[in-house]
């Protein structure tokens, strides 16, 4: 085994000042943590899918089976679709904000007044 602390070194920082995207370091860190957790949930979902497929096919399972599992074309499509759907689900707020830019909407309170009076 190499003497490199691969866990620490895997997350090494790239040289070059990181842009300020969100205007606040805490928000930057929160987003980094959130997206990492989002990624890990996706990994867990995929692993569970592997377990289910192996159980369906074999009725039994070992860790080695999970490690060597390679989806065929149909299974790969179904899993890819699952991940695509998962990404769309977690990004709903961003997608809806994009849609909102396409319209010029009044606050619902204004509509409420309008409906009350007309």
């Amino acid at each position: 085994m190499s003497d490199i602390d691969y866990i620490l070194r895997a997350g090494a920082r790239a040289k070059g000042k990181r842009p300020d995207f969100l205007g606040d370091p805490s928000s930057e860190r929160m987003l980094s943590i959130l997206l990492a957790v989002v990624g890990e949930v996706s990994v867990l979902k995929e692993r569970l899918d592997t377990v289910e497929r192996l159980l369906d096919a074999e009725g039994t399972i070992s860790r080695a089976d999970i490690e060597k599992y390679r989806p065929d074309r149909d299974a790969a499509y179904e899993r890819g679709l699952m991940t695509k759907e998962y990404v769309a689900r977690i990004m709903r707020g961003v997608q809806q904000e994009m849609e909102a830019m396409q319209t010029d909407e009044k606050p619902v309170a204004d509509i409420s007044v309008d409906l009350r009076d007309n």
Partner: protein
Amino acid sequence: MKREDVPPPYTAVTRHDVFPTPTHDEAARFNFLTAFNKYLSGVIGPGNKLAYEKRVLPAFRAEHQRDPKDRFEIRHAMNKDPWHRFWSACKRNSMEMRQQNGRAMVLRQLDALDAKARQLNADRPTLQLDPSVATPRYQNAVDIHCMPGSYHGEERPGDVSAGANYDCGIFATTAGGLGALSDGGGQALVEWIKRERPGWTPQRILDVGCTIGHNIVPLALAFPDTEIIAIDTAAPVLRYGHARAQALGAKNLKFIQMNAEDLSRFPDGHFDWVQTTMFLHELSGKALPQIIREGVRVLAPGGLMLHLEQPQYSDEMPLYEQFIRDWDAFNNNEPFWSAMHAMDLKKILETAGLPRASQFVTGVRAVVDPAVFPIAASGEKEDHGRAAVWNAYGAWKPQS
């Protein structure tokens, strides 16, 4: 839902002999990043243009009584827009996560990878490293595309970590658009030359800035009788690239550590093809023309010089498109990207000895197995900077 709308799985990547072996979960991490990248560019990428047209541009016009005059003014204005900022933050994180996952996968098995590379590299005349080659400033001013250590970094002396990490993540960043060996660019070159010059067998090809050789191996395999030399300044990617080429059976391909600004090792007219693939944007304003000059010098009369790059900015390209194509320059550590894409490449080629009449520009799209891999999107949903759609800037050197 069409099949091609769903990216291929990481398990579709070809595991050549020095490719790091992913665990189930490492592959799944790349699968997530692949889906996330596709979402960022394809689904919500158009939101950037929407934000620009609906509010950033109107606000700019109101403030300045005119339109933005260049891509930099658009960038400064867009960098104040909360939607674009959030999108950029997501994209930057995706790039950083790709690096962490690739490095974790490589570094935990570095002993095995180094051992395999040593075995494939030992005493081979086709790998020539030269420790006296300094890392150029344009290669170490920042870590290019947020790759910790860049191309020349080592976790321990003599390792292949930089090359292996580079190789294993291309699939995720391009959503599989470059194919099972991430060599869709090289495959495209083979297809292009066979169509352009059927029956031509070059005697010698020089690939400049080869990194891990993924774009030159297809040419080496397509022209087994051609002597091919691939150069780069970074030893770690050459060690990996040579081992990779050997593993893939490209034995007519020599990897040499060398700075292309000085090709004095080769006589005038030595090569009949001088190639770069997605390399020119990682140089500097002085190095680029110098490398072109040297490339033209070592190119034989009648020979081909070809540079595969993302499209150059021109007056015909809308400023917004220039701005979005510039994203990597400022957000993904590509500090020469913006300046390079605004250079007059035709003039540089002309000054170096390739007259306009000998030059051409052509579009090239990655060649992949369409049964498994997606055909790259272009246009509004394109993943700018990473799309497997390039322009080839080339010239056939005049005979006299």
